[in-house]
């Protein structure tokens, strides 16, 4: 079995919040012991709601936030904060907000050409060629090169953002809610574009989204996060057709399903609000909202263990869920 492209080993990112004047320091465990693999050519979907730590996880993988403990390895080698240039050529990111993620004072050409020059491509014609190629790949016309971001629609800006992420030919691209801020009628265009580029360029993705439909269509494997921990992970079909963690089931049940495509019952819905990551509930973080809550859930943190080959869930009742 080939070496995974990305290997996260018990990764934790903790922040200290508050201070002497504000009721003492508290630790925010944004990422609380995450172990994940992403294989070459694979898309890993990362699902979770606000406060689950998925964005922090993305930033840690990118090397922008130092982990508190645990290891991040790309292609077998540990990432260190020092070799930013090498990391930049391996991992890139597509951002959520197409309106804020482009420098308003740079033309498209400059936004795409600068990183190339920064990474040592000096030959002018090569830079131009690669810029034009990338623009064509994402569906932009050559005459778009000398325009500014405000002259484009949201969908086009996202294409520019995707082009920027791919211009250095990375192996792994983290897509952070790439279509949430776009009009619904163009989301399919961007999703198809991402799928096409993945095949064309042999990329791996980590697709972060709260939209289960997007995750289902794009991912090969899926991991579900809640308050800093992975609560379930497995192949896309298993996760969505045979979810073994009550939170996964709650997420699925929460989606309005007028066609009843998914067999989820009303009893699977989660109650109450998401707890604060500053003060997570003891034991299993999901227990206050869980329809299956028992004594054990408060006292004992469930381990992420297998229910089937390649399918793991962190629930004491993983064999009885569903």
């Amino acid at each position, binding site marked *: 079995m080939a070496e995974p492209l990305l290997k996260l080993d018990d990764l934790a990112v903790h922040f200290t919040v508050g201070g002497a004047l504000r009721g003492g320091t508290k630790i925010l465990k944004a990422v609380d012991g995450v172990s994940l693999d992403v294989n070459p050519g694979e898309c890993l979907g990362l699902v979770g709601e606000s406060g689950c730590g998925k964005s922090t996880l993305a930033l840690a993988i990118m090397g922008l936030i130092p982990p508190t403990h645990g290891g991040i390895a790309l292609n077998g080698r540990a990432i260190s904060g020092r070799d930013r240039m090498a990391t930049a050529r391996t*991992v890139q990111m597509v951002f959520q907000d197409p309106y804020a993620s482009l420098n*308003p004072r740079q033309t498209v050409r400059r936004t795409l050409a600068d990183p190339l020059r*920064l990474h040592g491509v000096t030959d002018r014609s090569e830079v131009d060629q690669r810029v034009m190629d990338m623009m064509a790949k994402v569906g932009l016309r050559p005459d778009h090169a000398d325009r500014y971001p*405000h002259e484009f629609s*949201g969908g086009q800006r996202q294409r520019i953002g995707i082009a920027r992420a791919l211009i250095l030919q990375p192996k792994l691209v983290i897509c952070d809610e790439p279509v949430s801020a776009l009009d619904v009628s163009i989301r399919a265009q961007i999703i198809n574009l991402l799928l096409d580029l993945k095949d064309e360029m042999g990329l791996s993705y980590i697709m972060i989204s709260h939209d289960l439909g997007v995750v289902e269509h794009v991912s090969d494997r899926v991991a579900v996060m809640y308050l800093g921990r992975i609560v379930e992970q497995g192949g896309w079909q298993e996760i969505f057709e045979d979810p073994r963690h009550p939170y996964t089931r709650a997420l699925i049940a929460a989606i309005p399903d007028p066609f009843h495509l998914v067999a989820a019952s009303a009893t699977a819905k989660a109650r109450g609000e998401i707890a604060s990551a500053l003060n997570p509930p003891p034991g299993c973080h999901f227990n206050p909202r869980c329809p299956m809550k028992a004594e054990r859930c408060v006292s004992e943190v469930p381990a992420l263990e297998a229910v089937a080959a390649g399918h793991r869930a962190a629930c004491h009742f993983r064999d009885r869920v569903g």
Partner: protein
Amino acid sequence: MKWGSNTWVGGALVAVAISAAILAPWIALTDPVMDANLMNAELPPSWQFPFGTDAQGRDIYSRIVYGARISLTVGIVSQICNSLIGVTLGLTAGYWGGWWDDLVSGTTNLMLAIPSLVFALAIMAILGPGLVSLVIALGITSWSYSCRIARAQVLSLKSQGYIQAARILGYGDLRIMFTQVLPNILGPLIVIATLGMGGAILAEAALSFLGLGIRPPFPSWGSMLSEARDQIRAAPWLSVFPGLAIFFTVLGLNLLGDGLRDILDPQSTTRRA
């Protein structure tokens, strides 16, 4: 981009002042320092002396025109100095945060608590009078505003996606600050700079008035005001014309600053309807 009347009027006034300074040798009527004839002392405005003469018999008009050089040099150079210091400090403090930010912010607060003119006075007292000391004194005491504004702008921009994207693409901190952040915060900074120039000119006038800036016989608008102090009733033209020169130049700079703000501000990503 609409050029309001502010920009035109302000720009015109500033252009006049700058032209006067540059073209002084050609449009002055006499040498401002040497052509002193006590026989002509304190004459009111006439055809020969459009703005009258001063106590030494020197043509005020020529002195004003040459004085423009001093005032504008002081104004522009000291403000450039202030902006460079302030923007660099503010940019780095906002971007890096941490102890550097604490240090810079603390110093800025200190500077803002001391009236800059008093500060400049103190420096002038140490360095002695003269154009160079004036520029230095004014150039290192008024950077707090640009620092504050630059820092605030950086803080609000830091979380924008394209800054993060630049980091992810491997851009170093300094490169990001100067190629990604700075161009996007220029608007308010330019406005502060033009306003600051006006302020510097006024400060020069005040310091020279107090006898600490430009010393006679060299003409600066402030020192001309100083010399005219005792004659305000008897020979008002001695103070009126330098005063008007200061007034119109500073007004022009302020209007220009206002106009620039309007032009540069709505320069943002406008969302599609």
